[in-house]
């Protein structure tokens, strides 16, 4: 049976594309792969040899990692492997949730303040004030007065991240507003909202997308910090910060209680940062050369 040249060419071209991509952006590919694995772990946690992460077994407390308990057990005899794998759900939910909400809200505020002088004067003063409070401290303050829940953690970290996105978008809008193509659109009678939608918004997407990845990474660390100091995710939800907080008292004799969730957290944050760096390089080649 004859094989058409196109049938051979297609896989070869695909392989070459993949090879080129790996050669040109090795860190982005590595970051994406790690992230994909973490998302896979979060989604498939119940099918990866885990047991109920909340199952307490006092008889089996503080067991070292073994064939039976891959990452050991904690002070309540709970399986650290299962808890760590389920913990991926919390970190990724917080990271993605905060990145999404803070970019959407920050984008809206940035667009409004970039165009309206009155809104700019009032809102940006509030944003300046919020920005002068270190983000973790702001999130702590908000969490200290609300009931511990995943939704409140996302909300608290989102509020602390919004001013940075708003300031970034406002800066981009202010410079875009003076660009000839925007002036031309306005002069040609394009409506305000149409100009915003067609000419301004698309140009803010690239920097906001890059910023979103860094917010995602920073939100995951902030969630872990909040949970670690007892102001984050409620103790009954296994999050990497919670697991480490509970292992704090035993870390000199049972370091695995801190090490395993710590490795998962660091790897996930590293993956998001690598993807963010890659995105920035791809979207702003001028910066790529320097950073």
């Amino acid at each position: 049976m004859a094989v058409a040249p196109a049938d051979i060419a297609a896989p070869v071209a695909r392989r070459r594309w993949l090879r080129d991509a790996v050669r040109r952006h090795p860190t982005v590919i590595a970051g994406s792969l790690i992230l994909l694995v973490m998302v896979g772990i979060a989604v498939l946690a119940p099918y990866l040899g885990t047991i109920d992460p909340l199952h307490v077994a006092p008889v089996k407390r503080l067991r070292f990692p073994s064939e039976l308990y891959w990452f050991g057990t904690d002070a309540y005899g709970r399986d650290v492997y299962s808890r760590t794998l389920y913990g991926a759900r919390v970190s990724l939910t917080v990271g993605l949730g905060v990145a999404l909400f803070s970019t959407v809200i920050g984008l809206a505020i940035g667009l409004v303040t970039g165009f309206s002088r009155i809104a700019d004067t009032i809102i940006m003063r509030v944003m300046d004030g919020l920005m002068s409070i270190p983000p973790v401290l702001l999130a702590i303050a908000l969490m200290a007065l609300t009931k511990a829940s995943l939704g409140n953690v996302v909300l608290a970290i989102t509020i602390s991240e919004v001013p940075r996105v708003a300031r970034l978008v406002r800066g981009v809008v202010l410079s875009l507003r003076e660009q000839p193509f925007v002036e031309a659109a306005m002069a040609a009678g394009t409506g305000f909202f149409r100009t915003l939608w067609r000419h301004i918004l698309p140009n803010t997407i690239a920097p906001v997308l890059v910023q979103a990845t860094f917010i995602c990474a920073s939100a995951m660390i902030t969630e872990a910090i909040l949970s670690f100091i007892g102001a984050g995710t409620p103790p009954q939800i296994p999050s990497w910060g919670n697991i480490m907080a509970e292992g704090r008292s035993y870390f000199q004799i049972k370091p695995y209680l801190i090490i395993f969730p710590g490795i998962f957290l660091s790897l996930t944050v590293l993956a998001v940062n690598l993807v963010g760096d890659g995105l920035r390089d791809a979207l702003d080649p001028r910066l790529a050369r320097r950073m």
Partner: protein
Amino acid sequence: MLAYIVRRLLATIPVMGVVAIFVFSLLYIAPGDPAAVIAGDLATTDDIARIHAQLGLDEPFFLRFGHWLWGVLHGDLGTSIFTNLPVTQLIAQRLEPTVALTLTTLVVTIAFAVPLGIIAAWKAGTWIDRSVMVVAVLGFSLPSFVLAYVLILIFSVEFDLLPVQGYVSIRDGFVPFIEHLILPSIALGLIYGALVARITRASMLDVLSQDYIRTAQAKGLANNDVLIGHALKNAAVPIATVIGIGLALLISGVIVTETVFAIPGIGRLTVDAILRRDYPIIQGVILVFSAAYVLVNLAVDISYTLLDPRVRY
């Protein structure tokens, strides 16, 4: 210059005003009765009534804000619900370890990160540059408390070289003081150092491609003179800016680092206050840290004139 400093000082008033309003309003933003939230699940109605009276929650918002602001302007940050001690006094008692940790971290980090950034820019594209950048990305990704535990396990538990936890005042000896601060400073400083090294490299790369650098090299100046005398001087403004802005990372990190290393500073005070829902302390700490952050960045702004003679105000 003086006019500029006064103008900038005046500009911090609305910023701190927003911080004050926000910090004060937090009690009212929370859903439900804040006194009940602060008192906790096991509180009696008497406990809730006591907190109501102590925080003045029965008074109208603006009246209470006026009282609170008047107190803050006179150095009175309220009274701790748990210890009944003035918050100002509690913060003052815990100031020394936090300032010592922050300053040590700042000095050590800048001493390492700036030269690393310079070398990475000078050797751009080589394995040295790539190694520095890899360390920088890792520094961004390794949460300070995870690094802290790894450092303790290696240097304190395994090799017994440094103390595991605790703080010794400089008055009780310089060597134990430094010994207790080495690991916390490294854990706290890594993310900050990563940021400073990256910006130093980026800023130096910009300057190193300028014509006057080529001229300096062409007239036979030594590498060190070109790097320090010509390049670093011109790259200093963005580096100073990021040193100021990055202080937010240090302040956030202090809270966790002090918890891991059992350092009795303001960070530890904050964590204890959160666990006890001692809100006046949390409000006081936020105000103090934010004021410190705003003032340091003001100092950085003013330092531009010293770093770059072209900057005139």
